């Protein structure tokens, strides 16, 4: 785990007065910890987006990069399964106009063009730093309703593999990962790896206050980080 480079990413963001890591930065931290990530490229304009999409190959995801918008999809800043160049242009304008209306002061740093992740079970993996107890890792069944359902479990980091499995078993939605209603059994070891590693990252990089992978898309073999964000101290 290249903690030196992780630390640099965090310090650079802090040095320009930012309180968050935007998605490409958060994912870079995860890449340094060997998390599996979809191929992606950060771009500044439509032409760059089209080039990137060609390089990665359609369909792609188009996502807004803004340090002022934490939950991009709620803000209309995410479009998935974009099939061609024309659609990129359409969705690009749609995001820009939507942000201009709803978040006129938000800084737009650019966009992320990303390979579409194969469907799977969506889980949320997070870590918060508590002032008294240090980093605590969270596991939950993913999606935007996670705050509503609160079907999550916590452990203080660092966690063992056994604790990671306990965390999974504690949520009510656990059967979704183990073949509920004809679904395939998902790669629980990959989830455990992610939980353990995320706890390690926050444990080692002092500048991180919260780090969240939502969703982590879990397949029969492996799990891919579809989106990530971090709050800095």
């Amino acid at each position, binding site marked *: 785990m290249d903690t030196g480079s992780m630390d640099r990413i965090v310090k650079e963001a802090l040095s320009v007065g930012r309180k968050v890591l935007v998605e490409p930065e958060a994912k870079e931290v995860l890449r340094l910890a060997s998390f599996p990530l979809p191929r992606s490229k950060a771009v500044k304009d439509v032409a760059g987006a089209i080039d990137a999409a060609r390089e990665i190959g359609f369909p792609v995801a188009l996502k807004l990069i803004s340090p002022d918008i934490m939950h991009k999809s709620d803000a209309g800043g995410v479009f998935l399964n974009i099939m061609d160049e024309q659609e990129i242009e359409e969705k690009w304008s749609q995001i820009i106009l939507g942000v201009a209306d709803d978040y006129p002061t938000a800084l737009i740093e650019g966009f992320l063009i990303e390979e579409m992740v194969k469907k799977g079970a969506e889980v*949320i993996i997070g870590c*918060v730093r508590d002032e008294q107890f240090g980093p605590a890792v969270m596991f939950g069944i993913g999606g935007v309703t996670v705050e509503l359902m609160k079907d999550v479990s916590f*452990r203080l980091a660092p966690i063992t593999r056994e604790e990671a499995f306990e965390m999974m078993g504690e949520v009510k939605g656990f059967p979704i990962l183990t073949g509920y209603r004809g679904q395939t059994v998902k790669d629980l070891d990959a989830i455990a790896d992610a939980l353990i590693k995320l706890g390690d990252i926050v444990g080692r990089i002092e500048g991180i206050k*919260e780090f969240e992978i939502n969703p982590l898309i879990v397949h029969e073999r492996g799990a891919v980080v579809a989106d990530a964000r971090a*709050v800095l101290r």
Partner: protein
Amino acid sequence: MHKKNNLSAFFSPSSIAVVGASEATGKISGVILESLRNSFRGAIYPVNPRYNEVMGLKCYPSIEAIGSPIDLAVYALPAGAVPEAVFNAGGSAKGAVVVSGGFAETGPKGAALEKALKEAARSTATRVIGPNCMGIYDTVSGLDTFFIPRERVQRPGRGGLSIISQSGSFAVTAMDELATDGIGVARVVSYGNKVDVDEADCLDFLAEDPETKAVAIYIESIENGRRFIEAASRCSAVKPVMAVKVGKGASGISAARSHTGAIAGRYEIYRAAFKKAGIIELNGYEDFLVACKAFGLTSSAAGKRVMIITDGGGMGVNIADACEQMGLSVPGLPEEVEEELRAAFPSYYGVGNPLDLTGSATDESFAFALSKTMSGDFYDMVIVAALWGPPALTDKLPGMLAQKPGFTEKPIIACTPGGAYSRDRIRLFHEAGLPAFSTPEAAVRAASVLSKGRWRL
């Protein structure tokens, strides 16, 4: 930092000074002196420059004037006078219990006094419990600084349970209930604002204290989380540690912006901390009392398999339901045990788990059922729900069960729902050394708590 743990002055003192001693009725110091004269076996020195004698004991103008070093000084002075008094004592008392209120809990002025007290303690190398606390009730040394008159709040007898509590009133109320139920304690510490000695220090001491068999903690807030987890882990490795945390509604990470940050309230973090430290989580005062009674009278269960023996079929099923809800299992009888019981009992007994001895139950049938079901490795504990209607049941029942015919270790939890007659029987179970509860749910909660002592798993 790991503080040097020298709390022996608090738990095995041979001499005590009561600073601010007075004969005036209703005064805190008077209650403390009275208690000490009642139960403390060491030397007692009242300190107050205004008297030559208090309660027939020679009174000294200052701690220094006693002339020989003493183990413990109890300060019952107005907050404003405490820091100077501790400083002037100059370390001639190894430990200090400051029961006075009026410190950080009251605002900035009190906080400044607390800082001064901390400084006085540090510079004189005095360990301090408090301020704003009730101090120590200790059945081993006979020390009692809880300044509530004994006619208002009973003191428990000697036992193996130790309680540490940020709140004095919480501790003292639990003590009173335990005393009424005939359940003993080893040490009770109310440490209030914890200017020096905190829960982690107490846990370090209790982990190694042979008199303490189980520890119950009441927590409002913990400052040094990692140190607490270390100390609690060491303690829970050798004896059960359970805790109630109040103030659950408090929100966590302020201005949190991720979903994780929004969900992670303070209580979720405390729960995670308890899990890390092997602490059994208790949910409120009632749960705290149930756990204190359970661990005060018996030790933990090796697993989650519960046998239910009753003379009321409906109560048995109700208990089985509660067990399932609380994550305990109620496995059926093994074939050989079932056959043996069927052969021995009338055909109208409900042989199974729950085992229903019906209105024809006798003391002997309870004891026989207990012996047959608990002697093999089929169950980890038993809930005996005795309804007292059957005329053949006598007051000998608790004593017969407590002999644990055919087994030794496994906990027996008694449950006697009902009115006045049944409630009076609870005392008989406690006298026999068995935890007993008046509702099935409380009995099952006790079973659940006993099954969580992980150090034996």
